[in-house]
C-alpha cells in the first residue's frame, strides 16, 4: 500500500482502522457485502483534469491541495470536519485524495455548477478518491448538478462536504447512470439558519453503489428535502443510507425515496432521522416506496425515527409491492394497453420526486433518461 498522501489529516487510530478493513460494524453496513473490495486499493490519485467542472462567476474554484499547503487557511476551517469519520471509505478518501476542489459560492449570488465525470477512468484494481468541498455563502441560491454518465468499469470513492450558511438555498442534484460502476459516495451537509438543501439523487443502474448521506440541521429553520430514486435491473445493487440529525428547534426534514427493481437487482433503503432533546417544533417525515417488477429482485427497507422531544411532528412509512393491479385494470378499461399502462404507472410512481427540480434542462435530461429505462422494461 502506498504511503498516505495527506499525513496531516490522518491520525494514528485512523491508520489502524484503514489497515484492518473491517468497517462493517454498524447496522447501515450489514446489507451489502464489501469483502470483495479488500482486494482493491484506494490510493489512486484524483486527477482534476478528468473531471469537468462548468461554473459561472458567482463561484470560485480552488484546489484543495493548494489550500492545504497554506498554513491557517480560513477556507479550510470546516474542511474534513463536516464529514463524519464514520467509515473506512471516508478515511481512505481523506488519506489518499491527491487533489480535489473547493467550490466557494459567493454570498447573495445565483450559482449554477455542472460537474461531469464522463472522461473519468480508474485503473483495474484501484479506486479513485474524489473530494469536493462546497461552501454556500449567505443568501446564495445554487443549482449543483453532478452528472455521472460513464460506461467505463469505474471504481470511485467520493466524499462531498457541503456547508450551507444562513439563508442559502441549494438544489443539489446527483444523477448517476453508470452500468459498470462500483461507487462509494459519502456526502455530508451542515445546514445553518433558514437555509434549505433540496437533495435529489437519481441512480440508474450500477454494479455496486453505496451511498451514505449525513445531514445536520444545525440552526433554527434549517431544512432538508431529500428525494431519491433508484432504477435497478440485471444484478444492480444500490444501497442508500440517509442519516438526518435535527440539532436545533424549528428544523424540518423530508425524505422520499422510491425504487423500481427488476431482474435480479437488490435495493437497500435505510434512513435514520434523529430529533434531539432540544429540538421542539421540528418536523420530520420519511417515505420509502418500492415497486418490484421481478420475483428475483428484492429490497430491504428500514425507515427509522428516533424522537427525543414530545413537541414535534413526525411520520414515516414504507411500502413494497408489485405494480398496482387495480390501477392497471382501471387504465386498461380506458383503452390503454397493458404494457403502456405499466410504463405510465412506473413513470407516475417516480416523476413526482423530481418534478420540483427548478432547472428545466436538468429536469428534462433526467426525465428523458428515466423514460429510456422505463421503456426497456419488459
Amino acid at each position, binding site marked *: 500500500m502506498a504511503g498516505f498522501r495527506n499525513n496531516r489529516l490522518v491520525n494514528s487510530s485512523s491508520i489502524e482502522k484503514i489497515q484492518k478493513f473491517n468497517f462493517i460494524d454498524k447496522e447501515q453496513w450489514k446489507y451489502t457485502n464489501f469483502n470483495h473490495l479488500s482486494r482493491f486499493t484506494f490510493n489512486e490519485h484524483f486527477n482534476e483534469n478528468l473531471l469537468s467542472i462548468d461554473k459561472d462567476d458567482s463561484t470560485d474554484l480552488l484546489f484543495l491541495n493548494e489550500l492545504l499547503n497554506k498554513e491557517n487557511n480560513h477556507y479550510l476551517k470546516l474542511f474534513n470536519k463536516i464529514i463524519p469519520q464514520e467509515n473506512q471509505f471516508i478515511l481512505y478518501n481523506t488519506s489518499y485524495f491527491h487533489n480535489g476542489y473547493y467550490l466557494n459560492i459567493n454570498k447573495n449570488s445565483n450559482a449554477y455548477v455542472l460537474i461531469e465525470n464522463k472522461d473519468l477512468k480508474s485503473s483495474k484494481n484501484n479506486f479513485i478518491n474524489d473530494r469536493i468541498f462546497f461552501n454556500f455563502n449567505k443568501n446564495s441560491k445554487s443549482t449543483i448538478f453532478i452528472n455521472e454518465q460513464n460506461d467505463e468499469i469505474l471504481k470511485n470513492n467520493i466524499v462531498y462536504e457541503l456547508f450551507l450558511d444562513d439563508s442559502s438555498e441549494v438544489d443539489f442534484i446527483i444523477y448517476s447512470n453508470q452500468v459498470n460502476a462500483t461507487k462509494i459516495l459519502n456526502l455530508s451537509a451542515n445546514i445553518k439558519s433558514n437555509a434549505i438543501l433540496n437533495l435529489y439523487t437519481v441512480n440508474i443502474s450500477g454494479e455496486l453503489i453505496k451511498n451514505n448521506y449525513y445531514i445536520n440541521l444545525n440552526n433554527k429553520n434549517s431544512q432538508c428535502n431529500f428525494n431519491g430514486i433508484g432504477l435497478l435491473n440485471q444484478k444492480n445493487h444500490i444501497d442508500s443510507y440517509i442519516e438526518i440529525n435535527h440539532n436545533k428547534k424549528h428544523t424540518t426534514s423530508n425524505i422520499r425515496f422510491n425504487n423500481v427493481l427488476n431482474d435480479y437487482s437488490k435495493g437497500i433503503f435505510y434512513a435514520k432521522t434523529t430529533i434531539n432533546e432540544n429540538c421542539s417544533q421540528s418536523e420530520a417525515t420519511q417515505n420509502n416506496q418500492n415497486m418490484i417488477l421481478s420475483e428475483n429482485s428484492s429490497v430491504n427497507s428500514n425507515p427509522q425515527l428516533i424522537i427525543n422531544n414530545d413537541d414535534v411532528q413526525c411520520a414515516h412509512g414504507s411500502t413494497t409491492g408489485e405494480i*398496482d393491479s*387495480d*390501477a392497471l*385494470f*382501471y*387504465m*386498461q*378499461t*380506458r*383503452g*390503454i*394497453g*397493458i404494457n*403502456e*399502462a405499466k410504463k*405510465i*404507472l412506473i*413513470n*407516475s*410512481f*417516480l*416523476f*413526482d420526486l423530481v418534478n420540483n427540480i427548478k432547472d428545466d434542462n436538468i429536469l428534462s435530461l433526467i426525465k428523458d433518461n428515466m423514460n429510456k429505462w422505463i421503456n426497456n422494461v419488459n
Partner: protein
Amino acid sequence: MLKINKLNVGVEDKTILNDINLNINKGELHVIMGRNGTGKSTLSNIIAGKEGYNIGGGKLLFNNKNLLDMSIEDRALEGIFMSFQYPVSIPGLNTMHFLRTSVNSIRKHQNKKEYTSGEFIKLFKEKLKVVGLDESFARRSVNDGFSGGEKKRFEILQMLLIEPKLIILDETDSGLDIDALKIVANGINNFKSSQNGFLLITHYYRIIEYLNPNFVHVLLDGKIVKSGDKNLALKLEKEGYGWLQK
C-alpha cells in the same frame, strides 16, 4: 349491441352469476338493482374484462363480437366504458395526461384524428364545466385526494371525453349529495343518444327518477328474477326485496 346469453360466472367453487340473459340495444338504458353481494358488480366487471373469474358457460357478445376472447383494453377500444364504484387513485399521474392518452388511443383505434395537446386542453376544460369540476383538476393526479363526489364526477367526465358506445355505471350515484347527483344525471342524459346504450347499477330510486330508464331488472342470488319499468324500482324503494322471494 350487448347480448348476454345464459352466462354463468363463479369465483373458485362459488357461483356468482347464474344463467344471466340480458340484451341492451342502442338507445336503451337498463337498470340493475339488487341487494349487496348478489353479483351486480361481478356482472359489470365481467363485461369490462376483469380477470379472476371463472366463466362456466354462456355467451357475452358486443356488436356480435365475442367479448370473452377480448382483452380489457380491446373491449374499451371497441367502445365499452365502465364507471367504477371505487375509482382507483394513481398518485403522480396527471389527469389530463392520462385522459389524453386514453382518448387518443381509442380515437386511433377508431381511425379518428388524435387530439393535439391544445385541442385536448380546450375540450377537457369544456367538459370539466359540464360536470361541475374546476380547472385545477387539470393539474391534479388521477383521483388522488378527490372526494367521493369528485371521483364520480371525474368518471362521468371520462365518459364524455371517450364517447363510448356501451356505458356501465357501477353505483355511480352512491356517495353523491343532491346537487352532485343532478350534475351526474344531467351529464348522463346529455350524452345519452340513439347511438349508445347504458347499464346502470344502483341501490336507489333517486337517480332513476332523473334518468328515465327503459328497463329495470332485479338481480337476486346471481339471477335476474324480475324485469319491469321505472315502477318496479319505485316498488323496490318502498317495499324492499323480500316480496320477490315469496
